[in-house]
Structure formats: structure tokens, C-alpha cells
């Protein structure tokens, strides 16, 4: 243990990186941005897999883990698909004329 200090640094730096990145996103794309980050934060599926797939997990763990994998997968799948569906609709004037 004791790694938490390192973890805090990672958190702090990625939060700052996040602020910088998001600031440069045009308000035009704020809705797709939110559904994309939503899909990305469903990376919690990693934690859910670890809980569910363990060798001697208790019944409780398996049930909770199963639900968590399901919910996170739902977010990953629908998040990426709907982001792409929205982005496909954004067209410029010149490309539309073709």
C-alpha cells in the first residue's frame, strides 16, 4: 500500500488535463461529449469483471458484480453508439451540397 499518494497525483493531473481538454470542446458538441465521457466512465466494467469473475466469490459478490457488469456494458454500448449516431448528423454546408 502507501500507493495512494501516487494515485492522488494521477487523479490531480488527469483532472487538470480533463479541464484543459473539455475547455477546448466547442459548445456545438457538448451533448455528444457528455455521452462519450459517459461511455468512457463505464470503464468501471473492469472493476465489475474482477468482482464477478473471481474464483471464490460469494453469492452476494456474484450478484452485485453481475448487475454491475450488465449496467456498465449497457452504458458502454449505448454510449458509444449514440455518440456516433449524433456525430454523423453534424454536416457542413459544402458537404451537404454534394
Amino acid at each position, binding site marked *: 500500500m502507501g500507493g495512494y499518494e501516487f494515485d492522488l497525483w494521477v487523479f490531480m493531473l488527469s483532472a*487538470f488535463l480533463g479541464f484543459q481538454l*473539455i475547455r477546448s470542446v466547442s459548445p456545438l458538441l457538448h451533448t455528444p461529449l*457528455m455521452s462519450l465521457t459517459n461511455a468512457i466512465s463505464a470503464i468501471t466494467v473492469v*472493476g465489475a469483471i474482477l468482482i*464477478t469473475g473471481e474464483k471464490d466469490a460469494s453469492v452476494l459478490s456474484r450478484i452485485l458484480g453481475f448487475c454491475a457488469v450488465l449496467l456498465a456494458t449497457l*452504458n458502454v454500448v449505448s454510449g458509444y453508439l449514440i455518440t456516433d449516431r449524433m456525430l454523423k448528423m453534424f454536416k457542413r454546408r459544402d458537404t451537404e451540397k454534394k
Partner: protein
Amino acid sequence: MTVDNSLLPLLYMLAAMSFILAIKWMNSPATARRGVIIGEIGMLLAVVGTLLRFEVVSYQWILIAFFLGSAIGVPIAYIMPMTAVPQRTAFSHACGALASALIGTAEYYKGLRQGPAPTTVEMTALIVETLLGFLTFTASLMAFGKLQEVLPQRPITYKGQNFVNLGIFGAAAVVGITLIVSPESTSLFPVFTVLALLFGVLLIIPIGGADMPTVIALLNSYAGLSASAMGFVLNNKLLIVAGALDGSSGFILAIIMCRAMNRSFGNVLFGAFGQLQTSAAATSERPYRSASAEEAAQILDSARSVVIIPGYGMAVAQAQHKLREMSDQLTKRGVNVEFAIHPVAGRMPGHMNVLLAEADVPYDKLREMDDINPEMPNVDVALIIGANDVVNPVAETDPKSPIAGMPIIQAYKARTVMVIKRSMNPGFAGIDNDLYYMPNTIMLFGDAKAFVTSLVKELSAVHAA
């Protein structure tokens, strides 16, 4: 199959990199779709890597959950109408937050059963994870209910509400801290869970429907922070990074929304904005002008520049496609047509842009408020459809108004202002709009879609004549 776990950190790092790139590429519509692809690749790397970890031995339930999650997720993504995107977003915040909370709960009981007992640091992260997870879960469900209009839009308030909320939150904090100090007091964990769930519900009850854009963004941030806290529990940097990115994203969007309404977080969360203004009953019988579709079409036809200012009312009436037809007609005759988008025009950040993009309005015609305001005095016609408070000059003139100081699209500066509206009733905030009574304003009464449809007809008639 077993893979050396030493490869894993590399995979996770690649996944974190692709998430960062994914968000970076969202800064322009030209690269945004590439962002989605790299994000998907990152997710795939992380999931496959995790599945191959030697700790993971039992696959059946994971695969069933993958299957069910996709079976629900795919139809949602394809069937969902664009007007319902805010609801879907609230729903997915609920799912994501609940997932984190459930994993946290499982981690807690697992740590107690198998040992080693969680350290104070781990326990702190775990409590933060489950607190944010559970409260965001119920809060997002409430937001979903308000957006879906199964729950009342008006804020529900009662005396001492803020004290009750503060009390519940304080109780949750005390129980949480007790659990951090002595993790073995298992009986407290369900209490903690219930308090967090309850707090989520109470938090949203006093918030009006018009504030949902801010609330959604804030809940997005909480869900991300919960995921990040899970990273601390599991010692997983990828979760920390992804959660922090999501957390900061939601936070920034919430700030942008607050600024766009000139409100503070505290005011949004505890201000119960959107209650009917009783003082607004003083709306006098002031004179105003109205016109028919025929007259309006002639004015539009003779204009050189038209700025359309849409609000959520336009989307409710499903008028965006007709509006685009009208804009095409005008463009063909050399009228410069643009759309001015207020940051809170839709029901979530950027929502209006998506709705117009869906109606095939090219995105270079969508202008931001700050960008278009300086040009408003040179605009011949400002056509307002389904928007109200975001063009109300009272925000600039009356310091006592509830929307005082809110940045507005300065439609009143245009040579002619046209407002499509059902009646003279005030908008959501119940504030009378001075714009409607200005000498250069023409009211066009009717359903937004029906009126724009008749405008389109009249315009082609003018052209044919």
C-alpha cells in the same frame, strides 16, 4: 488462457491514452467520430486485458451480463429520438453510478469476509465511491423522471427543506466516517446505503425542470468521481484517469450552464428556481402587435439577414424540420439565415445543436450567443421560436428580475423581431417578457410547427407570384 499480468499495466495505459485522445478529438466535428473509434478501441483493450487476468476464472456470468447489457443498450442507442437524449443521459448516469456503488458494496463485504481488512485509505475511497454512486443513482432517476415528465416540473418545496437535506447528508457523512474508522461495523453499511439513496432523491425534488441541464452535468461529474474513487479502491490508475476525465468534464459543463444563467451552484441546487412568480401577476394589458403568416412571410422574404433563435419549445412542437425547409427557401433567395443558440436552449448542454443537426441544418450555420450578439443590430429579422427567457431584455434592464444578469441573445437589437408563440402567457419562470411589447416586435400566434409550415407555404406563394 493465461496472460502474464505484467502486460496488463501497459494495456491499461494504452486504454487511458486512447480515452484522452478520444476527448481531445471531440474539439471539432471534423475529428469527433475518430474520437469515438479510438475510445472504443481503448475500452476493448481494457476489457480484454481484464478478462485475461489470472484472477478472473469464472466467465459465464460475465458473458451473460455482456449479452444482456448489449441487448438493452443497442436498441436504446438506435431507437432513442434526439429529443429524448437528455433523459437517456440521465438514465445512463443512473446506471453508471449504480454500477460503481454495487461494486463498492461488493468490495466492502469481500474485504471483510476474506481479508485483509480494508485500510483507512481504502475505506475512505470506498465510502466516497458508494456515497457518490448511490446518491447519483437516485438523483439521476429523479432527473430522468422530471425530463420524461412523469414527475412534476415545478420544484417541490416545503419549510425547512434545506435543513432536512443537510441533516440527511450530515447523517450519511457521520455513518460513513464511522465505517471508515471501524469497517467491521457491518450493520451500519445498509444504513449508509439508505441514507445516500434518500439524499439523492431529496436533492433533486426542489430543483425545477428548467435547471436540468446544470443538474445533468453535475450528476455526470459525480458519476465520474465515483468511478475515480473506485480506482483508488482497486488500485487501478485507468479507472482513476477515466473517472477524473468524466468528473472534470461534467463539472466544466455545469459551470458553463450556471454562467449561462448567471446563477451559482448553490442557487441551482437550493434556490428552487422556477416557482411561479406571484408578483408577475401584475402583467398589465400592454399593447402589442401581431401579424398573419402571409405578412410575416413577406417581411422575411424582403430581409437580407435572418437570425432564428430556437428554444426547447421548438423541439417540443417538432418544428425543426419545417424550420430547416424555411431556412433553405430563404437561403435560395439570397437571404443569409443563421441560427443563434443560447447555451441553455435545450434540455442539456449542446442539446439544441444536436436537434438542429438532426434536421440537416449545417453546423456552420449554428452560432453561439457571444459570437452573434455583436452582429444583432445589423440583422433584419430575428425570428424567435419556442424560446422565451433567453431573449428577455429584462435580464439586462431590471436588476430585480429573477433572471437579472443572465446573458441573453440580444434579439431586441434586430430591426424586426418576430416571435412565434401560442399565446401571451409567460414562460417557465413566469416572468413577463418585455420583448413582446417592443415597437419593433411582431407576435405570430400559433403552434410552432403549424405556423412555420404556413410560413413555408406563403414563401413559396410569394415566390410563385
